[in-house]
C-alpha cells in the first residue's frame, strides 16, 4: 500500500545542510496500523509529510497504491492528498467554524452540495462520539474532543490512509487512551490503513501492528510490535521498550532488591521476560519443582497486552542457592524460552 524506497530528505538552511531523513526503506500494508517512534528531531514528521507531498524527497521514491507521490504536482497532487487524512498534535481546527463546519471543510473543498455535506458530517460526528456537540466552537471543547473533531474531519473524504502525527501528545493519559481506542475502532470498522507517529512507546503498544524506530533520520529497526517489544535489537529500541514496560517499578524494586541482595549476597536477582504463550505457563511452579533446594522470592511482576494480541510479561525474582544450582535454574529457564536477565547488584 505504502512504499518508501531509499528515501532521503536534506534541508538546506542558513546554517548548512540538515539531513532529516536518510535512506529509509519502508512498506506499510493495507489495513494495518504502522507505528513510527523516535525522539524529537528524528525525522518522523518529515518522513510522513512526504506521504502527501507536503515535503518532496531529495532522493528516493514514495509510492502509494502503485502511484509515485513524490513526482505529483498541482491538481494531481491535490487529488492524491484528498485520499489521505491527517490528524495533528495541535488539532489545527478552524476556530471560526463549528464542529460540524470543521468536519464539512474537506467536503466543501471538493464542492459537495450543502445538504449532502451536512448529512455526512453529522454521521462522522456521531462516529467519533461528538453527535451532541456539533454546534459548539473548538474553543468550547476539551483537547480530547478537539482531536475527535480532527479525526472526523480527516475521515470526511473516505481516505484510504490516516496519518496521525503526535495526535495524542498534547493530551493527558486517559484522554490519550480514549483517542487511541477510537483510532483502533476506526481501523477495524473502516478497514483503514493508519500510520501513527509518536515518541511514546505506550501508543505503539496499544495500537500498532508493526513499528519502525527512527534515530537521526534513519530507521534503525522495524518489525511486528510483539517482536520488537520482546527482542529489541538496538540500544534505542531497548530504551523505548523498557520505558514502557519497566517504568512503574523502578525505584521500589531497586530498594527491595538492594536489601535482598545484602541479606543473601550469593543469591541472584533475575528479571524474567515472557512473551506469547509462556505468559500462561506456570514457569515458577516448574522451576521450584525442578529445583526444590532453591529459594525463590518474587519481587514484582507485570503483564502488558500488545495491540497485535501478543502479551508481554516481566517478573523480578531472587534465586537463592548455590552458584551451580542458580546457574542450572537459569539454563532451565532458557530451555523454556523465558528470557532471564541477571541483574547485577544495583
Amino acid at each position, binding site marked *: 500500500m505504502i512504499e518508501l524506497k531509499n528515501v532521503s530528505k536534506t534541508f538546506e538552511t542558513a546554517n548548512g545542510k540538515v539531513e532529516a531523513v536518510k535512506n529509509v526503506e519502508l512498506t506499510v500494508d493495507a489495513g494495518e496500523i504502522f507505528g513510527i517512534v523516535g525522539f524529537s528531531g528524528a525525522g518522523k514528521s518529515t518522513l510522513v509529510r512526504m506521504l502527501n507531498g*507536503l515535503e518532496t524527497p531529495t532522493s528516493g521514491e514514495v509510492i502509494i497504491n502503485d502511484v509515485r507521490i513524490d513526482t505529483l504536482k498541482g491538481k494531481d497532487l491535490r487529488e492524491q492528498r484528498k485520499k489521505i487524512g*491527517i490528524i495533528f498534535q495541535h488539532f489545527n481546527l478552524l476556530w*471560526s467554524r463549528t464542529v460540524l463546519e470543521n468536519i464539512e471543510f474537506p467536503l466543501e473543498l471538493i464542492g459537495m452540495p450543502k445538504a449532502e455535506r451536512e448529512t455526512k458530517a453529522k454521521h462522522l460526528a456521531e462516529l467519533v462520539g461528538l453527535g451532541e456537540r456539533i454546534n459548539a466552537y473548538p474553543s468550547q471543547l476539551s483537547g480530547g474532543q478537539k482531536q475527535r473533531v480532527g479525526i472526523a474531519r480527516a475521515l470526511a473524504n473516505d481516505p484510504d490512509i490516516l496519518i496521525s502525527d503526535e495526535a495524542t501528545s498534547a493530551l493527558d493519559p486517559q484522554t490519550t487512551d480514549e483517542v487511541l481506542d477510537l483510532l483502533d475502532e476506526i481501523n477495524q470498522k473502516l478497514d483503514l490503513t493508519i500510520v501513527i507517529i509518536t515518541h511514546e512507546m505506550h501508543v505503539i503498544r496499544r495500537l500498532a501492528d508493526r513499528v519502525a524506530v527512527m534515530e537521526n533520520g534513519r530507521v534503525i529497526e522495524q518489525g511486528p510490535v510483539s517482536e520488537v517489544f520482546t527482542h529489541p535489537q538496538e540500544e534505542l529500541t531497548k530504551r523505548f521498550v523498557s520505558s514502557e514496560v519497566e517504568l512503574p517499578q523502578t525505584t521500589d524494586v531497586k530498594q527491595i532488591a538492594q536489601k535482598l541482595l545484602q541479606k543473601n549476597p550469593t543469591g541472584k536477582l533475575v528479571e524474567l521476560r515472557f512473551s506469547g504463550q509462556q505468559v500462561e505457563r506456570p514457569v515458577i511452579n516448574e522451576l521450584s519443582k525442578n529445583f526444590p533446594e532453591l529459594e525463590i522470592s518474587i519481587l514484582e511482576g507485570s503483564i502488558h497486552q500488545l495491540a497485535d494480541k501478543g502479551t508481554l510479561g516481566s517478573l523480578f525474582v531472587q534465586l537463592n542457592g548455590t552458584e551451580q544450582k542458580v546457574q542450572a535454574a537459569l539454563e532451565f529457564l532458557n530451555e523454556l524460552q523465558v528470557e532471564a536477565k541477571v541483574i547485577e547488584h544495583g
Partner: protein
Amino acid sequence: MDSQGLSSYFRFSDVNWPNMWEATWETIWMTVVSVAIVAVLGLLLGLLLYETAGSNKPAVKVLNWIVALFVNVFRSIPFIILIVLLLPVTQVLVGAITGAKAAIPSLVISAAPFYARLVEIAFHEVDGGVIEAADAMGATKWQIVYKVLIPESLPALVSGLTVTAISLIGYTAMAGAIGAGGLGQLAYTDGFQSYNNAITLVATAVIVIIVFIFQYIGDFSVRKIDKR
C-alpha cells in the same frame, strides 16, 4: 469683529441646523464610501503583500518590493499634502476638485496602504498549522484564502478596518478645509472664518459622535465574530 469670549461657544442661535445636517451627511457619505473602497483595495494589496512575502523567486521578490514601496511611500505622505498633490489626478478621475466626491481619491489612496499593512499582519497571525492542514487536505491557494485566511483573521480585519475608518473621519475633516464639504469645511468656513464658535463646537461634537458610532459598530462586530 464679534467678541470671542467663552460664552461664544454657546450661542447656538447662530447655528444653521439644516447646514449642519447636510455637512454631517457629507462627512458620513465620504467616510462610508472611502471605507468601502479601502476595505476592498486594502484587502487585495494586503493579500498581495502576504502572498509575495518570503519568496525566493526573483519575479515575486520584485513584485513584493514594488508593492511594499508603494504602500510605504503613500503611507508616509501627510494627508493634507497628498490631497494637494493629487489635485490633477482627482480632476481627471472625478472631473472636479471640490465637493465630497472629489475627496474620495485622496482619502482612498492615503488609507488603503495603511489598511493593507494591517491586513498583511492579520494574515500572518493566522495559525500556520491550520493553513498546512488545509493544504494537506488538497485545498487550492484560492480556497485557502477565502476559506481559511479571511475567516480566521476576520476579527483582526474588522478591527483594523475600524481603526482605518476612524482615521478616515479625521481625513475628511482635513479635506473639508480645502473644499471637500462636510463637517470639516463647515467648522472651517462657517465656524473659524466667520468667528462663529458655536458652529465649531457643534461640528466637533457631531464628529466625536460619528467616531463613537463607528467604534461601537466595529467593536460589536468583532465580539460577534470572534469565537476564539
